[in-house]
Structure formats: structure tokens, C-alpha cells
């Protein structure tokens, strides 16, 4: 008989097996999708000049959803010219108060269409519907609402100085939070008086192009927002176009570095929000049940497709066994499967390529000597899925402790002293985020001061707010998004 009071098995567990399976609870509303999405340029949906389209699929079942226009350099050029014209003739000289009202309208319209946007996001990207419904879409609307109020108050951002918009901003966003990343980019850019040319990620263009419909509904002047879908070449064309005087990119550190190189000979302004390998640090005085929830949220939120994911768990040695036991029990009840089901915790991996990358890195964990554990839960026959996975016996030199996996894979390391935790946490080229779990407020503040990371969550994880600046130290990029600090990155101080 196992002892139920031991630290590795802290409480009695009711085991039901599969006696009571959840009934399916699919979201069924109509996302109002088109079969074919054209480019949104100068306030209208236009076919790409070369007439090329690519298919976007549902990663949960690999069926085609729609055809997406593939913008080439000529299409990007049209978009940049439209943005420049809008900036010079309308948006750049419009009083901030009026610009703000357009942003308020957009926020409201996003709220109106929240349900269809959430479904579209989940269909196209694979994330669980409860996350797109409760996080992505409301937070995107909140970002527009927050920045709307700034538009007529910009002079407060740089006391004693004047500020001016850059003009046309080129923006390239990732596939993990498609509409939310769009909001993080477009809302501050527009509030500051810039016009934008934005390229969504290749696998998740639909909500960005649907956002074009919102711009039309809001009566936003033509050319203020332009959406050019496509692949890496399209993004490169946006970034290198002579009219984009500022470039904002969210994505991998590797691509961020190549953008820096490609712009080395120019005077373009840049903000980069890149990768991470965050440490989530659990001290022995932490509320452990709460910490376990935070660990799960830190690494399994959005299938781990989160740049600030708490992918390295650092547990104080004295509670390591207990935390691990609780964690294993917790992930055993995570539901992996149909993203459209309202009970699903982990949806589909965004693409076949990403699944291959996660699989490869998880394999390296095993070959390098770490111990792999997953729940062995059943996965759907079609689509891209990966079980919540944790690795113990991980050393700092393992690839799974150094490289960004961008999937539901947690590497667990232990520490004895706060100094050792800091040493391990900071021993990475990244510096985006970190988590600290402890009952001591003073320890939170000291750890936060010494962690080399742009965001530190204490007794919580993966929290976001439009008022709260987000961005990294070191190779996690530069510039901030959110708050007054993020907004000022969209203005030049003159």
C-alpha cells in the first residue's frame, strides 16, 4: 500500500478512470469566414498583383479553411504608398482626440465581433477556444481601448519635449497570438499617429484580414491600416521598404538578428520582441498548490507557444519531490484535443513544422540524458498534437534547458539557495520573463531586482495587461509594448 501522507503523494486521490467521460462541448457559432481572403490595402480588399494564393489549414484536422493572398514586393509597395499617403494627407495631421475616437470604435467593434473572432482564431491557429474566447480577443480589444485614450495625451510621454510620429511603421507578427499581437502592434502605432503595414504570420492570417473588415466598419480612413499576408519574403519586403521608417517585429531571436543585420545600413528605428527561456522559480515557502497551477499555466498556456513561457522550472530542492508529484497529478487531468471543445486545455500545435521542432527537441532531451514524463493521454488521429511533457534530471547544458522549444515541454531543475536560483535563471542569452513563487514579499522584490528579465511575475505567471510594459533584456529583444514606455517607442522625441 502506498503511504498517502508521504511528500511524494500528499493527499488521497479519487480515481474514476474513464467512468465519466466529458461530453463533447463544441463551440458551434459561425465565424463568418470567406473562402478567399485578399490583401487589405488602402481601405479595400484587393487581389495580389500576381494572383497568388496559399491555403491556410486548421491544424487540428489538417483541412483547408481558406485561400490567403500572397503579397509580393509590388503588393507591399502599394501598401506602403497607401500608408504614406494616409499619413501625410489624413492621419498624421488629425487631432489626437479624433484619432482616439477611431481607436475606441475599433475596440468596441472587436467586442461586438468577439465570438466570431475567437472561433476564427481557434480554427486557424489551433489554440483552445476557451483561451481565444477569454484571453486573446478580450485582451486585443482592451489594447485598443487603452491606447485610444492616449491619442490626445502624447505630450505627457516625454516631459519637457515634443513628440512626433515616425510615419509609416512596418510590422511583422507571429502566429502564437495572431489578433492580440496585431493589437499590440497596431493600437500604439495608430494612437501615436503612425500608419501601418502589417504582415501576419503565414499560418494565421485570417483574423488579421478580418480585422480589415473591422477597420472598414469603423470608417477608418483608407490606408491607415494595411494588412499584407504572405510568407517570410513578404515580411522582408515590409521591413526593408524605404517608406517604413520604423519596424516592429515579434518572433524568433534568429529572425530578429537577421532583421538587425538587414537594416544595419539604414536609419530605421526598430523594436524587437524575440524569444525566451524563462525560469519559473519555486521557493520552499511558496504556496505549492497555487505554484503548481502557475507552473501549468506558465508552460502549457497556448500549448507552450508563448515567448515568455515558464519553460525552465527551478524548484528548491527541499520541495522538489512534492512539487513534482503534484505537478504530475495536475497534468494528468489536462485535456488535450479538439481546440473547438470548450473543455479543452491544450489545443493543436500550430503547424507541422512546429510539431517537428518540438518533437526533435524533446527527443534531444532523452538522448542527452534527461528523464521524460508525459501522461500518455490519447491524441486525436488527425492534426498536430503533442502531449504535455516534463523533463526531470535536466542539466543546464541540455538543449532543452537552453533552447526555446515553443511547445508544451517543461524542463525541471533544482536549486538550494536563492543565489543558485539567480545564477541558473540568468544563465541564458535570453531575458524576457521570469516567475518567482514565495510567501515573502521582500524576497519577491529582491529576486525581481536581480533577475535579468523584462517581466517578473510573482506568485502568478503569464499575466498581461495593456497598461503593463512587456519586453525583454539581452537577446530577447528591445523596446517595450504596453504602458507609456511601449507607446513612446512609436514616437520620436524631437
Amino acid at each position: 500500500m502506498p503511504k498517502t501522507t508521504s511528500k511524494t503523494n500528499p493527499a488521497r486521490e479519487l480515481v474514476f478512470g474513464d467512468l465519466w467521460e466529458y461530453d463533447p462541448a463544441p463551440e458551434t457559432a459561425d465565424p463568418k469566414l470567406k473562402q478567399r481572403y485578399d490583401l487589405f490595402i488602402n481601405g479595400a480588399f484587393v487581389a495580389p498583383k500576381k494572383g497568388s494564393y496559399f491555403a491556410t489549414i486548421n491544424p487540428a484536422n489538417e483541412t483547408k479553411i481558406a485561400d490567403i493572398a500572397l503579397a509580393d514586393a509590388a503588393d507591399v509597395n502599394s501598401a506602403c504608398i497607401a500608408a504614406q499617403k494616409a499619413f501625410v494627407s489624413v492621419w498624421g495631421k488629425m487631432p489626437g482626440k479624433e484619432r482616439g475616437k477611431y481607436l475606441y470604435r475599433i475596440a468596441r467593434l472587436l467586442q461586438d465581433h468577439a465570438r466570431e473572432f475567437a472561433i476564427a482564431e481557434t480554427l486557424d491557429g489551433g489554440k483552445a477556444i476557451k483561451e481565444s474566447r477569454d484571453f486573446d480577443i478580450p485582451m486585443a480589444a482592451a489594447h485598443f481601448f487603452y491606447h485610444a485614450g492616449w491619442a490626445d495625451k502624447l505630450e505627457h510621454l516625454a516631459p519637457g519635449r515634443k513628440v512626433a510620429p515616425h510615419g509609416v511603421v512596418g510590422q511583422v507578427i507571429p502566429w502564437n497570438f495572431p489578433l492580440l499581437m496585431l493589437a499590440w502592434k497596431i493600437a500604439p502605432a495608430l494612437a501615436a499617429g503612425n500608419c501601418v503595414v502589417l504582415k501576419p504570420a503565414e499560418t494565421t492570417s485570417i483574423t488579421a484580414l478580418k480585422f480589415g473588415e473591422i477597420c472598414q466598419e469603423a470608417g477608418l480612413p483608407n490606408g491607415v491600416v494595411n494588412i499584407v499576408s504572405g510568407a517570410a519574403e513578404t515580411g522582408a519586403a515590409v521591413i526593408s521598404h524605404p517608406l517604413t521608417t520604423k519596424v516592429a517585429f515579434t518572433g524568433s531571436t534568429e529572425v530578429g538578428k537577421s532583421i538587425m543585420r538587414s537594416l544595419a545600413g539604414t536609419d530605421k528605428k526598430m523594436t524587437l520582441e524575440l524569444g525566451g527561456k524563462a525560469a519559473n522559480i519555486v521557493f520552499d515557502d511558496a504556496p505549492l498548490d497555487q505554484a503548481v497551477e502557475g507552473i501549468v499555466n506558465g508552460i502549457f498556456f497556448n500549448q507552450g507557444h508563448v515567448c515568455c513561457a515558464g519553460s525552465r522550472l527551478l524548484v528548491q530542492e527541499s520541495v522538489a519531490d512534492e512539487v513534482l508529484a503534484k505537478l504530475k497529478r495536475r497534468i494528468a487531468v489536462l485535456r488535450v484535443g479538439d481546440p473547438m471543445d470548450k473543455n479543452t486545455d491544450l489545443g493543436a500545435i500550430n503547424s507541422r513544422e512546429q510539431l517537428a521542432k518540438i518533437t526533435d527537441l524533446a527527443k534531444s532531451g532523452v538522448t542527452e540524458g534527461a528523464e521524460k514524463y508525459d501522461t500518455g493521454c490519447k491524441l486525436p488521429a488527425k492534426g498536430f498534437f503533442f502531449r504535455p511533457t516534463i523533463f526531470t534530471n535536466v542539466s543546464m547544458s541540455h538543449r532543452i534547458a537552453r533552447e526555446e522549444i515553443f511547445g508544451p515541454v517543461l524542463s525541471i531543475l533544482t536549486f538550494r539557495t536563492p543565489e543558485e536560483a539567480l545564477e541558473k535563471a540568468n544563465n541564458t542569452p535570453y531575458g524576457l520573463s521570469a516567475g518567482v513563487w514565495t510567501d515573502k514579499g521582500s524576497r519577491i522584490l529582491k529576486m525581481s531586482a536581480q533577475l535579468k528579465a523584462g517581466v517578473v511575475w510573482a506568485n502568478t505567471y503569464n499575466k498581461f495587461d495593456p497598461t503593463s510594459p512587456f519586453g525583454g533584456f539581452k537577446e530577447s529583444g528591445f523596446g517595450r509594448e504596453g504602458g507609456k514606455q511601449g507607446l513612446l517607442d512609436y514616437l520620436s522625441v524631437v
Partner: protein
Amino acid sequence: MSHRLLITKTPKCYVGGAFIRSESGRVMALHDASDGFFANIPQCTRKDLRNAVEAAARAGPGWAKRSAFNRGQILYRLAEMMEARAAELAEAVALGGASQAQAAEREVAASIERVVHYAGWTDKYEAILGSVNPVASAHFNFTVTEPMGIIGVIAPDDSPLLALISLILPAITSGNCVVALASNTQPYPSILLGEMLATCDLPGGVVNLLTGLRSEMVPTFATHEHIRALSGAVNAADRKTLKMGAAESVKRVRLLKAEEPIDWFDDKMQGVEEIRALIEFKTTWHPVGA
């Protein structure tokens, strides 16, 4: 009384709190306005630059931990040291050219004013740049600034004192350390500045001043991974080299165009925006509850 033979000074670079010659043993001859020999100045190397980065790395944590009040007092003492030797500094800026004496005096005066300006910023910029953020959840959410670490400063040839100190000051005001390369054509004021930095209670290694050829040093400034940001005024080719190198470790870059006229006397060349360019923002979510 017969004329005694004057003792001439051997210019040395201020690195790690000590006065050094280049490890290479190389020197560059400096001439005065009448083209007479003035002194030999160290022609520092990439190795000297790497050594200076090590000195800055040792000094960094201690300097960043100093209280804002303490940093302010040290900067103010730098102004005191410079004021006391203002005439000498002006001579160094003009280097014997009587026609430039007035301009040199003006440059020294502006430099001292700039030091005082930043001495007053040490305990104030945080209140302007940082914030408490009204998030929707039960958290005390606040954003504070932190120094980036080691800043590589590359001074232009013109305004050899004012430009150099205008680039150094915003970096150290917030607790960064600096490895700076002085003007190529007029390096001597940086030698005197080093002597003043050495006597103003600034911990050794916080500011390290090198003299030498920009063309030799720029590639190492660009790629040295412990240098976390680059600040300077350089030509287009050097900007490209520095930015290409910066990409390797996502280094922050803030470079002015040396080929265009820069008015270093302008009040816009100083202030909290200059400090902002060389800090990181850290946001903490602190739980609120009993």
C-alpha cells in the same frame, strides 16, 4: 634664475581606475597648433578594449547598487574637479591654438554644466521613466529602470571634451559602466578627463577611457558580447559595421551621424531622453492580498 627644464607629462589612459599605456606599447605623436611635438599618446588596441570591458564588468554591479544620491554627489564632485582645472582643460581642447582659446573655454564651460545637469538627474529620472501600472488584476504592477550594463561609447573627432562627456554622462547617471574611445584627432582632453574621473570618488572601472584609432577598435566594439549597448557619433561605414556586429548579440545601438554637423551645446543633447536610451525597463507583478 636660469630656466629649469619643464617636466612633460606622459599621457596615459584611465582604465580600471589605473593609468595605463597600451599593452601594445604603441603610441601616436600629438602635435600642438604650431605643429611642434606635444606628447606621445597611447594607441590602444582591441586587447586594451577587451581589458577595459573586463574592468567595467568588475565595477558594474557595485556602481549600479550605489544609491542615486551617492551617484549624484560623485557626478557633482566631477564637476568640482573639472572647474578647478578648467583652464588646463581649455588648453587641452585648444592644444596651443590661441585662436581657438575662446571656443575651447566655451566647450569646457558647457562640459562642466553638463556634468552638473546629470548630477541632478541621478535621483529623478526614475520618477519620470518608471511607472505604477493600473492592471486589471489584483497585483501591484510597477515598472522600474535598470542599467543595461557596459556601454561602448565612441566619440566623434569634433568637440573632443563636450561630445565625449555628453555620451558618457547619461550612461553612468543610471548606473551603467562605460568603455569609451576618445576623439581620434584630439584625444588629449580625454587624458585630462581621466585624471578628473580618478579624483571624483567614481569607483575605478566605471568609466574607462581609451585613445587610439577608431578604425582598429570599431569591429571589437561591434562584436564584444559583454558590451550591451553602443552610443556614439560615427560615420556611415562605422555605423553599418557597429550595427552588423550588434545583431550578433541583440545589442542596443544609438548612433549619431558624425558626417553631419552636431550641435553638442544644444540643450536637446542632454536630459532624461538620453538616459532612457541606455536603460532597460523591468516590470514586476507583485501579488496583493493578506
